[in-house]
């Protein structure tokens, strides 16, 4: 449905109309202004950080880029691990809800998955630290014993289970609902005629999904994953609570020394930061903002381009 088209006959402009339409316009523009303000204020407050000297930084970093690089690595690494786990699972769940579950149950099942999105992140943090980390620790030990030759699973294993892999699992759980919801919407929009044509040719349900649903939904799946990635990049509390941070670059996912993320680093250090320390943290926040903005804009651009047949927004 589209709003009524502008006709050639112009209505009489009443004061009420003018006030109301201006108010709505102002609100709309205010959003653009806010987004610009976020960028401007962050840049303004982070300028001193770029010229800061070695003494201003925590740890061994000598300039801002040396300080921020391990954090950027940690942020992307944790989010990527989470995405690798979440996307296949989400596609499976979305297919289950859209094409396997009985029609009457489907709405309810979707709602159950959405419940995961309603759990506050700080609760996930508590859960990750008290339930998940001790539960997976024995599994990690076995993993290093059997697959320690593989660089990712190299020992020595962490004794608490509080590693970047645990963080990635919790992050995966947190981005699961949004990726699932978007994939589900797209799968439901597959033209019924395509599906029926496949079935009429004798395809089984899986072949029908392979032939009709997945090719149709591919751009949607990509953009849903990128939106999930955006979420995972910016998630703070879980990382801050579960990891004991260190400024290192390491791909090993089971050791007790783990790279931390930008967001968690800010949350942990901001309350005690002062003077230029605040500016440095805001500058790292600016980096995070830039990364997530880029990821989200690419994702939205893909959605926008395929708008006529993907309902991913």
């Amino acid at each position, binding site marked *: 449905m589209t709003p009524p088209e502008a006709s050639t006959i112009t209505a009489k402009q009443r004061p009420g109309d003018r006030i109301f339409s201006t108010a709505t316009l102002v609100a709309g523009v205010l959003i653009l202004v806010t987004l610009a303000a976020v960028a401007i204020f962050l840049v303004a407050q982070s300028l001193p950080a770029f010229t800061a000297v070695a003494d201003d930084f925590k740890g061994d970093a000598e300039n801002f880029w040396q300080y921020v690089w391990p954090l950027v690595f940690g942020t992307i690494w944790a989010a990527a691990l989470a995405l690798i786990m979440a996307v296949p699972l989400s596609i499976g*769940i979305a297919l*289950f809800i859209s094409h396997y579950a009985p029609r009457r149950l489907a709405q309810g099942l979707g709602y159950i998955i959405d419940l995961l999105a309603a759990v506050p992140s700080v609760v996930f943090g508590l859960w990750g630290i008290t339930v998940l980390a001790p539960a997976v620790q024995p599994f990690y030990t076995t993993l290093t014993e059997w697959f320690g030759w593989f660089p990712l699973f190299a020992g020595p294993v962490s004794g608490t289970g509080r590693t970047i892999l645990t963080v990635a699992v919790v992050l995966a759980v947190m981005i*699961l609902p949004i990726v699932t919801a978007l994939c589900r919407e797209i799968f439901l929009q597959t033209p019924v005629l395509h599906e029926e044509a496949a079935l009429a040719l004798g395809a089984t349900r*899986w072949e029908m999904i392979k032939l009709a649903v997945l090719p149709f939904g591919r751009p949607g799946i990509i953009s849903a994953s990128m*939106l999930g990635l955006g979420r995972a990049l910016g998630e703070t509390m879980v990382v801050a609570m579960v990891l004991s941070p260190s400024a290192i670059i390491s791909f090993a996912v089971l050791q007790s020394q783990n790279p931390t993320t930008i967001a968690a680093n800010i949350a942990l250090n901001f309350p005690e930061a002062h003077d230029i320390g605040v500016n440095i943290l805001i500058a790292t926040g600016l980096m995070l903002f830039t990364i997530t903005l880029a990821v989200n804009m690419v994702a939205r651009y893909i959605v926008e381009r395929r708008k006529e047949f993907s309902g991913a927004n």
Partner: protein
Amino acid sequence: MSLTATPPQAPVTQNGISNSLTAGKLPRYASIYVLVGALAASSAVFGLVAVSSGELFNIAGAVFCGVVLYTASIWLISRLVEGSRKAADRFVTALVATAFTIALLPLISVAFTTIVNGLPRFDAAFFTESMRNVVGAGGGALHAIMGTLLITGMAALISVPVGLLTAIYLVEYGRGKLKHGITFFVDVMTGIPSIVAGLFAFALFALVTDDPGVRMGFGGAVALSVLMIPVVVRSSEEMLKLVPNDLREASYALGVPKWLTILKVVLPTSIAGIITGIMIAVARVIGETAPLLIIAGFTTSMNYNLFADRMMTLPVFVYTQYMNQGTDSQAYIDRAWAGALTLILIVALLNVVARIIAKAFSPKTGRR
């Protein structure tokens, strides 16, 4: 073990002619039999291990191995009876159902642990006392609950008018590049990390008040608004689009001005959906921790003034109780879990009320 579920190859009808329609197919409930068989087999093995080693029966392990065994055996049986294409279909069905079950595990686990760990301190004192001068056991989260209500209320007060007016602009007035731009950037805004919103509020108020260590509740409300506005815009926009054009045209035909049409026809028709969207948006930001940690800070005392001093909120309360445990650490952990339980209950309540409003008052042209 699971092979006992294998049916006769071609069911034979009463007069002895094999039914070509059901030949080469597994019977209807074959997958359920195989699942039960696989679970029984794996729990039998795990039971034997538990008895012989004297350890506790490993439920998770038994279920996991049972599901793996089921997936393998249904594929094998189907492959033997029905051929490779059907087998692949059954294999994927098993995988997809497993994916859904896996997603349920964290949900159940989170709900269960929060309730079990939260109940010990979920008492009257928790809701009537603050943490002022409390060391060790005792104390409560009244200051945090108060702060959460004030800050979230203020955020809603800012976001609802802006969000709703923007949605009206997008649906009723907007056209061309500006409309596209706003739609695009509202979507982009949905992806702003919450901690960046907190840093923005901090940077803004640090410049405005000229205080490099500024902490105030209002800043938290601004940060939450940045996160909340796009959600309100998106959901209100969807709801306004659902209002049939016939209603608008009927109103114009009667000579009603456009702004009155919107106020008296379009909004009342979609108000249930809009309120639902707003409540879900509130439920989303009420659990935000990071921005409030940055700009609202934490304290142990009551603070009713949004415009001065630190203000505690429930998520930050949970976080600080857990991260800064005192000598009597169990008391801190109990308080953290009780806070988490309160938070989940508030979010659940908001969601349930939102769904009820959506169900009860939705217009007849609604989606459901």
